[in-house]
């Protein structure tokens, strides 16, 4: 067991060193250069603040059930709820739309102007409409995350489908794969997967970024984003940083899981084809 851990650490030595030295650099900058807890709290400040919110209990209510857990966990679950709503919606909308646009030239011409008009409109600007249309519900927060996440998915899916090597499409056609649906499913999709996967990664990042916007207008009283604002208004920068770090770590975890699934399961064949 211990050996296993040692082995795991060893095989991750580079990563570990990288993180540790980044933290050291931060601590030293905070201690020796900035020297102002408000401008840049040090690692230790952040850790002690983190311990505080881990110990502070809160009550999670699910229906009639009420469980007492650390407040940061409640925030985390709340944010994950918002995030999942937005991401699932973005995936369900973005991938099909991107595929349709990448495959059918005419539909691309129809959808492109509308999408290009909507795309630059920032998630923040949608807040009033989210309030009006969807109310102060998790769906409303999910909507803002959706807005941020859907366009990267569309663009990278589109790019992936545009760049399917011609030879594969032709090979499939002469093998009797005639319907666009099948061509997309059996040829374009696997071939575009690296690009789509990168799109989803970006979308997760942007969506996660939008979480903070999504939780700034009163959809809930918990949430990592909500707490960032909360503590920011109170100028408690150490807690702001703790929540930023939790947000960062959770985002990292989500991203790593995604990459693991993609690289190990979906793109295994790629290893030998690319450099």
């Amino acid at each position, binding site marked *: 067991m211990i050996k296993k851990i040692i082995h795991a650490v060893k095989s991750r030595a580079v990563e570990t060193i990288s993180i540790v030295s980044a933290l050291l650099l931060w601590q030293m900058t905070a201690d020796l250069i900035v020297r102002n807890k408000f*401008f840049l709290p040090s690692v230790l400040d952040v850790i002690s603040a983190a311990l505080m919110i881990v110990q502070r209990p809160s009550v999670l209510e699910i229906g009639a059930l009420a469980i007492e857990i650390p407040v940061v966990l409640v925030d985390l679950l709340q944010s994950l709820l918002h995030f999942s709503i937005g991401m699932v919606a973005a995936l369900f909308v973005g991938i099909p739309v991107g595929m349709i646009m990448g495959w059918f030239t005419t539909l691309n011409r129809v959808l492109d102007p509308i999408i290009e008009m909507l795309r630059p409109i920032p998630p923040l600007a949608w*807040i009033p409409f989210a309030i009006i249309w969807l109310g102060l519900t998790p769906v409303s927060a999910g909507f803002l995350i959706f807005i941020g996440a859907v366009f990267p998915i569309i663009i990278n899916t589109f790019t992936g489908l545009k760049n399917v090597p011609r030879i594969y499409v032709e090979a499939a056609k002469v093998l009797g794969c005639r319907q666009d649906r099948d061509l997309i499913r059996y040829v374009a999709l696997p071939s575009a997967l690296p690009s789509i996967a990168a799109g989803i990664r970006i979308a997760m990042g942007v969506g996660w970024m939008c979480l903070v916007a999504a939780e700034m207008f009163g959809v809930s*009283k918990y949430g990592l984003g909500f707490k960032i604002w909360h503590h920011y*208004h*109170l*100028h408690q920068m150490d807690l702001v940083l703790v929540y930023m770090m939790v947000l960062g770590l959770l985002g990292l975890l989500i991203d790593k899981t995604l990459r693991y699934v993609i690289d190990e399961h979906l793109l295994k064949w790629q290893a030998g084809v690319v450099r």
Partner: protein
Amino acid sequence: TEPQQKKELTEIKFGYQPSTHQIAYLTAKDKGMWNTSLAPLGIVKTSDNLFPSGAPEMTAMLSGDLDVAYVGAAPFISALSEGLDAKIVAAVQVQGSDLVVRTGVPYEKPEDLKGLKIATFPPGTIQDTLLRNWLKTNNIDPDRDVTILPMTSADAVTAISAGQVDAVFLPHPSPTEIKEKGYGRTVIQSGEIMPNHACCVVVVSGDLIKNHPEVVKQIVKTHVDATEYNNAHPDEAAQIYAADQQMNITIVQHSINEWDGTWVSDPHLIVNSTVDYANIQYELGYIKKPLTEKDIFDMSFYDSLQN
């Protein structure tokens, strides 16, 4: 190096927010009072930044980007407890927030609020603190009996218009706007909750206070003059504000007529409510150390003008 610093001071940087509370700053600017009064002291330039809320304004002050801030007392207090070197040198206004209940929601007495959703500024603000205290004194648990939602004023107005919240507790001119559009009515004004409670204040950086007291004194004097001018000419004040914000003049005028706020400059008026407020914040754990009148105020400039 201090005397050198003294010589170098040629510019004063102001911060303010888009609120009818702070028209004094705009009046002084509009009338050129800042430039004329400060020029003899070697100030050749005044510049300003407009902030949507107090938090970034205080952050800017912390990083040394602002010399003078027109700001709410609340964000100032929390910034102070986090190490900001600055003091309140004058008041700007007292009272001036309303509890507005949505049209169609019955309201007779505070108990009627039970079970409702109320939007107000985020925790730590004057509005949030006032609202919670008032609910408590009326035997309403702010955490269990009602749902308090932290929002910006714009979001809160949108939310009440769309029927997403049942009441809002906001500073002017938002209550007037809601009323004018027919979405709600004022049921209680903040002056009834806590008379003469502090709201906006003039904050000056510690550096300026220490190294250029004569400049600070002139700033306070100009502020007092502008405040007096506004009180004497409220319609013109409304016009100045509406012009600066490109806003509908009638709403501004109605707001100024209806609110219970008062433009004041005497910091003594708000000492008690501000210190009380700081204590409440400390008890809530929102700030880390208790703050005294000495920590918060420097009345010497205002007082020296009176003699």
